[in-house]
């Protein structure tokens, strides 16, 4: 019964989203206030129905209802409760329902927060969001219905893909989708502004907190995915430039450009048409990512069942959404004229370069991701593009961007007055050079060419980000959430660059064949293979090794790498044994059983690896803090309140 209720609720949600779209767009266009007033109830109803739908699907999972095909394919009677819930988004159909539900959450939040906006504008925003919702509901019901029944019911389920049976991966998709969907809000604001012809600075202020929060979610989502890949895939890498990773990374890069250009548009009324275009682009790339992952067009390690019918549907949806918004853009954007000018070393100019470099970086990732597809489409044969392409081409725009970030944070609007902060910039730069040198000589040694550059840039951004808040504290000035958020995010960026440089330069890695009792040297460490015991979990069995790691004869940690065989899907999973320490991870993973109780063991010492993810979380936290600034909540329609500090924006 529950699946039928869920199915029915999903159909109702689709119909309500159609009403939401119609009333939201046609109401203001035809000046019908009663239509306009119907938008909010439609939003409420749509959200209630999609909540019922996702609730029914979750209940079917928790109650082991194997008469539902999707449950039978992705769950099992031995699956622990947490994963029975997360199995809901373990495959294509359910993850679409999750997508729609998160979009419902954002829509309700926008509806509640937009009471202070002009009624026609708010209606249009919700109308555009309704169109996005409608597209996804129609897609789900037409090509990917999770409520289809099996007759007769399956005796037991085929289990959730064991790779996905992991806490980080249970929350990775919701975070990622919250980010993608959040960009739909920025997109809707941009479309509403173009439809309404209200292209002044106010829409930029209304969009900013939403965009920043969406960006923060996406940052966390990507970081969780990378962390999972590191400890679960068993070869100790954390970023592979896989098409699906790129699909999530491109909206992030454009989103980063967007939150910076929104600052310029809000504060100075410049870059207006550019900001509109970025708003469209960020969401378009999110949709494109969905297309690439689910249409089977690109081959990737992320296995969503490839289905060309779904691909055709999403392509049509892309044409409507992206094509429609870009047409609107081609029509409206020429009306925009910016009057103000700015000097070369003003904040505007730094943010302009920030945007250019981020777009260049996005373009290189885009080119690498699409190259196999284009080569195939032109009949030039199968092509695969890997880190050999991505690493250097991505680094090229990123290095100048990092240097600009350290300086640009201190530039003021309009006038180029960086020279006033020259003392501080030189001091922090000297300090970061010393830090880089100390790290190379003292702690690690033997650098590569880019090591001092990366270390110094990272440290410089971190110090430079702290300079402003420190200065204010010293002078007993108020610290607004905007300033704290911006400093945090940039501090995170600096830490990210620093830690990535250390990881890439100083990782020691060896693959060795070991039997119980053997020892192997990795870097300055000694691995001692002490034990190999059988283990049994709720739905798997396998072996568990015990490896003691010694440094100078002293024990510094014990690792428990596992090799698991999941019963239902007969797939073998590698659980790496990782000893997380403040300065380094000591990592071991069991490879192949070489017979005679000998195993191939992958041993890694990765210094500072955890700071890479910590840095991503700090960046995200910075975004969330910045979005809570008072000026977004109060006096939405009036000008910025007089007490607000002019430089209180997330600048680069």
């Amino acid at each position, binding site marked *: 019964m529950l699946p039928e209720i869920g199915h029915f609720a999903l159909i109702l949600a689709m119909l309500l989203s159609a009403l939401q779209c119609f009333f939201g767009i046609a109401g203001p266009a035809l000046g019908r206030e009663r239509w306009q007033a119907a938008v909010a109830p439609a939003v409420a109803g749509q959200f209630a129905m999609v909540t019922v739908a996702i609730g029914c699907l979750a209940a079917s999972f928790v109650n082991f209802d194997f008469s539902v095909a999707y449950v039978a394919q992705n769950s099992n009677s031995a699956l622990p409760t947490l994963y029975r819930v997360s199995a809901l988004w373990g495959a294509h159909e359910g993850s679409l329902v999750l997508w729609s539900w998160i979009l419902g959450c954002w829509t309700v939040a926008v509806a509640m927060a937009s009471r202070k906006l002009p009624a026609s504008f708010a209606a249009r925003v919700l109308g555009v969001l309704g169109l996005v919702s409608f597209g996804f509901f129609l897609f789900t019901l037409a090509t990917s219905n999770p409520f289809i029944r099996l007759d007769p019911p399956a005796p037991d389920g085929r289990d959730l893909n064991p790779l996905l049976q992991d806490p980080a991966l249970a929350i990775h998709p919701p975070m990622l989708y919250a980010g993608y969907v959040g960009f739909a809000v920025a997109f809707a604001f941009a479309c509403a502004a173009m439809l309404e012809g209200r292209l002044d600075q106010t829409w930029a202020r209304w969009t900013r907190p939403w965009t920043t929060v969406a960006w923060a979610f996406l940052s966390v989502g990507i970081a969780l995915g990378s962390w999972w890949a590191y400890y679960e895939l068993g070869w100790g890498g954390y970023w592979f430039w896989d098409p699906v990773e790129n699909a999530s990374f491109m909206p992030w890069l454009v989103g980063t450009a967007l939150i910076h250009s929104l600052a310029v548009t809000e504060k100075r009324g410049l870059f207006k*048409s550019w900001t509109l275009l970025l708003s469209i682009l960020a969401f378009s790339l999110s949709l494109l990512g969905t297309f690439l992952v689910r249409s089977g067009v690109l081959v990737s390690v992320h296995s969503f069942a490839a289905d060309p019918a779904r691909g055709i549907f999403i392509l049509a949806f892309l044409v409507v959404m992206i094509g429609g918004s870009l047409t609107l853009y081609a029509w409206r954007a020429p009306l925009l004229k910016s009057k103000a000018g700015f000097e070369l070393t003003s904040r505007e100019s730094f943010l302009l370069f920030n945007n250019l470099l981020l777009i260049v970086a996005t373009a290189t990732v885009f080119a690498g991701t699409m190259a196999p597809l284009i080569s195939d489409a032109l009949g030039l044969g199968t092509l695969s593009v890997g880190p050999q392409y991505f690493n250097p081409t991505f680094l090229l725009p990123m290095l100048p961007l990092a240097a600009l970030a350290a300086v640009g944070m201190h530039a003021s609007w309009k006038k180029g007055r960086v020279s006033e902060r020259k003392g501080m910039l030189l001091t922090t730069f000297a300090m970061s050079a010393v830090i880089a040198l100390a790290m190379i000589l003292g702690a690690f040694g033997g650098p590569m060419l880019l090591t001092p550059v990366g270390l110094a840039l990272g440290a410089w951004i971190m110090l430079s980000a702290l300079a402003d808040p420190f200065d204010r504290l010293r002078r007993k000035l108020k610290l607004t959430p905007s300033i704290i958020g911006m400093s945090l995010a940039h501090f995170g960026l600096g830490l990210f660059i620093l830690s990535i440089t250390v990881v890439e330069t100083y990782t020691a890695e060896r693959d060795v064949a070991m039997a119980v009792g053997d020892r192997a040297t990795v870097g300055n460490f000694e691995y001692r293979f002490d034990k190999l015991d059988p283990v049994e979990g709720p739905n798997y069995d396998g072996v568990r090794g015990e490896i003691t790691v010694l440094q100078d004869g002293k024990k510094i940690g014990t690792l428990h790498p596992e090799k698991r065989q999941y019963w239902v899907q007969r797939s073998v999973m590698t659980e790496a044994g990782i000893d997380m320490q403040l300065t380094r991870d000591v990592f071991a993973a069991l490879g192949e059983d070489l017979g005679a109780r000998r195993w191939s063991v992958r041993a890694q010492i990765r210094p500072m690896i955890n700071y890479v993810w910590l840095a991503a979380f700090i960046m995200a936290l910075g975004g969330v803090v910045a979005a809570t600034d008072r000026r977004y909540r109060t006096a939405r329609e009036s000008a910025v309140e007089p007490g607000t500090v002019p430089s209180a924006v997330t600048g680069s």
Partner: protein
Amino acid sequence: MNRFILPIGAFALLVVVLAIGIQRAPSKSVIPSALLNKPAPEFVLPELGSPDLTFDSKSLAGRWWLLNVWGTWCAECRAEHDMLLAVRASGVAPIIGLNWKDDDAAALEWLAQLGNPYERIAADREGRVAINWGVYGAPETFLVNPAGLVVYKHVGPLTDEVWRREFVSRLPPAAAPAVMPAGTPLASPAS
């Protein structure tokens, strides 16, 4: 005005590429094997159920043959089993089974229950041969020509449609004579 049309123009171009991509997508589910048109990796393995007998892939030189990777633990292998029996009955080309990471007793019981579609069965207990062949899941079926080159690889259960479209079309009409009729006892094992 012109520059504001650029984005939509670029997008139109992208749509064309994606549309072509979708048309070609179905062929992507066949992961291209690195072995295609390369010599099939040679191997010598014990025969299933008779560990003192060995199977040598060189014994098939000069014939069209199929390598089918299977295991009793693999649900989809059961699904393709009837198709394999039909292939054997058609006598077009011999099927060599690669019993992958399996248990001898379980594999023999499976064959006793469901029938044996294989001419010979090599037991790859540790999965080394499967690695050489680039196998990443069962079932997989390879087609090898008389020159010893891998001509085609199919991932997933063999269906009638796949068999007709991908295998029969590649086999010469005259391949049959090289094969003994279905139902004859298994060839005597090579020593």
